[in-house]
């Protein structure tokens, strides 16, 4: 619900609640004023008749149309004036009328008189009816105006807020540009803007620190690793015994693993830093074919049968290196965890990539499959970061990956939820960074 709608609704609720109360108050005060003025008039009339009685003249017997009653009473009551109001039925007009009677008591020539005169006054119901009609129009008019003006005014008042929203929407930490927000004279928006500015500046600062750290970590670790690796290579060149060769071999294996872990973790960090932005669409089908070709020997070695359903003209917006890593990791898993004489089915459409392979069921829960350093059969030859990287690549590109085990097949499906670019518009061109050397068989 929009802010302006919320305000409008609150205005209307308040208005609806207040109206009956104000109506009651105005009704009461109108009725009271009318009765009071009528009472004053009738009291005056009574006084006038009393004067006539006093002077001995024949008293007037009627007001305008109603009879005046004059009677003697035994004593004067405490209140010299009594006012009573009653509803009576008027047969001629066939409706109720409201009758206001004023009785005044006088001491005239030592006799006590009660002089009563009455008049019909406007009924409460009529006042109420009149008011209701006015209130109805008033309400309709006010609600209409609230709805219209809040919309017009909010556009003006919230314009700087809207600008702020637009600015943050396109803000990206990677652009290394500071957040520039429009000036505003609204206190709350000024606070919001200054808060946003502080927050983004801090985030930008943290981001650059993190980047710096990952770069430094990389540099600091890679150089010692390079030294150890090169020294071992030189050591292997020297005159060594078989026993020493074995030891060197083991060390080389361990270093190899270390190098891979370091490299994979750095790749994950870079993915998290969103350092791989795709500038243009990529022929994903071509990369799929070239990665498949590079694995051909390995597939033959394990005597795996490969079924390839790769659609032509599948283009996606993804960084070429990431596309290659994604496919390489998925396919090498499909081969590595396969049986001898097993099978692999690779299906690529413009909506999804599905890789099915035979293999033993997972030994870990499927939901742990994409976690770092989780391996099904603790296969010593793998680091356990391959699928974590795949998952991260999917996250970065807005793809959705799912895993299933069905009838002896591991099924990994990557859904390209983003609508794939129109393949026709994509000109035929060689994808720049493919595998260094796709196998020619």
């Amino acid at each position, binding site marked *: 619900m929009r802010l302006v709608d919320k305000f409008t609704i609150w205005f209307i609720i308040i208005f609806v609640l207040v109206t009956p109360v104000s109506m009651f108050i105005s009704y009461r005060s109108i009725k009271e004023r009318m009765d009071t003025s009528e009472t004053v008039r009738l009291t005056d009339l009574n006084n006038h008749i009393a004067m006539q009685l006093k002077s001995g003249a024949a008293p007037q017997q009627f007001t305008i149309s109603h009879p005046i009653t004059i009677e003697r009473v035994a004593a004067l009551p405490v209140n010299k004036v009594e006012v009573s109001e009653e509803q009576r039925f008027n047969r001629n007009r066939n409706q109720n009328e409201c009758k206001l009677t004023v009785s005044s008591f006088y001491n005239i020539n030592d006799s006590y008189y009660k002089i009563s005169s009455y008049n019909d006054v406007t009924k409460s119901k009529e006042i109420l009816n009149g008011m209701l009609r006015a209130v109805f129009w008033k309400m309709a008019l006010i609600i209409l105006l609230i709805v219209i003006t809040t919309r017009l005014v909010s556009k003006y008042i919230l314009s700087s807020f809207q600008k702020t929203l637009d600015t943050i929407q396109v803000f990206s930490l990677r652009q290394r540009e500071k957040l520039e927000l429009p000036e505003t004279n609204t206190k709350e928006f000024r606070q919001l803007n200054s808060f946003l500015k502080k927050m983004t500046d801090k985030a930008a600062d943290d981001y650059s620190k993190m980047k710096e750290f990952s*770069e430094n970590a*990389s*540099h600091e670790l*890679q*150089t010692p*690793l*390079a*030294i*150890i*690796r*090169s*020294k071992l*290579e*030189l050591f*292997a*060149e020297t005159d060594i015994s*078989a026993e020493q*060769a*074995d030891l*060197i*071999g083991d060390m*080389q*294996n361990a*270093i*190899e*693993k270390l*190098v*891979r872990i370091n*490299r*994979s973790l*750095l*790749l994950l960090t*870079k993915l998290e830093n969103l*350092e*791989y932005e795709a500038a243009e669409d990529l022929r994903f089908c071509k990369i799929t074919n070239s990665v498949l070709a*590079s694995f051909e*020997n*390995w597939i033959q*070695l394990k005597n795996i049968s490969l079924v390839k359903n790769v659609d032509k003209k599948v283009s996606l917006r993804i960084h070429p*290196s990431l596309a*290659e*890593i994604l496919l*390489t*990791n998925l396919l*090498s898993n499909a*081969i*590595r965890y396969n049986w001898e004489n097993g099978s692999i089915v690779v299906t690529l459409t413009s909506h999804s990539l599905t890789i099915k392979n035979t293999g033993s069921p997972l030994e870990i829960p499927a939901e742990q499959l994409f976690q770092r350093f989780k391996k099904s059969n603790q296969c010593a*030859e*793998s*680091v356990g*970061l*391959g699928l974590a*990287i795949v998952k991260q690549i999917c996250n970065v590109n807005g793809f959705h990956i799912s895993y299933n085990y069905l009838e002896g097949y591991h099924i990994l499906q990557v859904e390209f939820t983003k609508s794939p670019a129109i393949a026709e518009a994509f000109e035929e061109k060689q994808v720049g960074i493919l*595998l*260094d*050397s*796709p*196998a*020619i*068989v």
Partner: protein
Amino acid sequence: MKILAVEDNKELAASMLEFLSQDNNICEHAENYEQAVDKLSQYTYDCILLDIMLPDGNGLEILKFIRTKNISSGVLIISAKDSLDDKIVGLERGADDYITKPFHLSELQARLRAIYRRKQLNGDHVITFNEIALNTDTLEATVNSKFLDITRKEFELLLYFLVNKNRVLSRQAIAEHLWGDYTDNLANLDFVYQHVKNLRRKISSLNGVDYIDTVYGLGYRFKSTAI
């Protein structure tokens, strides 16, 4: 081949110099920007190994220097960053290739040789060793002047052996050379064995000498003298 290694890390530089100078290369070392510029102004080199992260300034500055002075040496960038930006910037500014730390010395050698081959004007693209000849242009190989029917990977493997004669090449180094370094995939090692086996069989079938020696526990060695 005359090589200048610009690398601030002394141990790594020592390894590179020791390895490269075994192949009749003349290797010199510069530790920082100043020394590098000094040497580049006085001598000519065939190849320059350039660490782009030097303590006294970005190695890219040296690249700029090389370009402004029209130095025709091949440049191989060494970086620990492994970030795509560096790679692209480096190659755009006139470097010939890019290698990421930690690298195998044999890989370094192969890359340097490749740059050297490309840089030599009118140089022929045929590498010969005794009865074996490899044409790096057409990717064709012959043994005893007979066509050797090998796959692209086997060609690359043979080339790798030839530029690293008499070196122990670990299976990892070979795997990384053939399949790149992004695979989380050490099972490729069996695969190296398969490729080496095929290569030996194919060369033998053309009456070639079996130069490839298995070094127990470590890998393989291409011996310049027959076993």
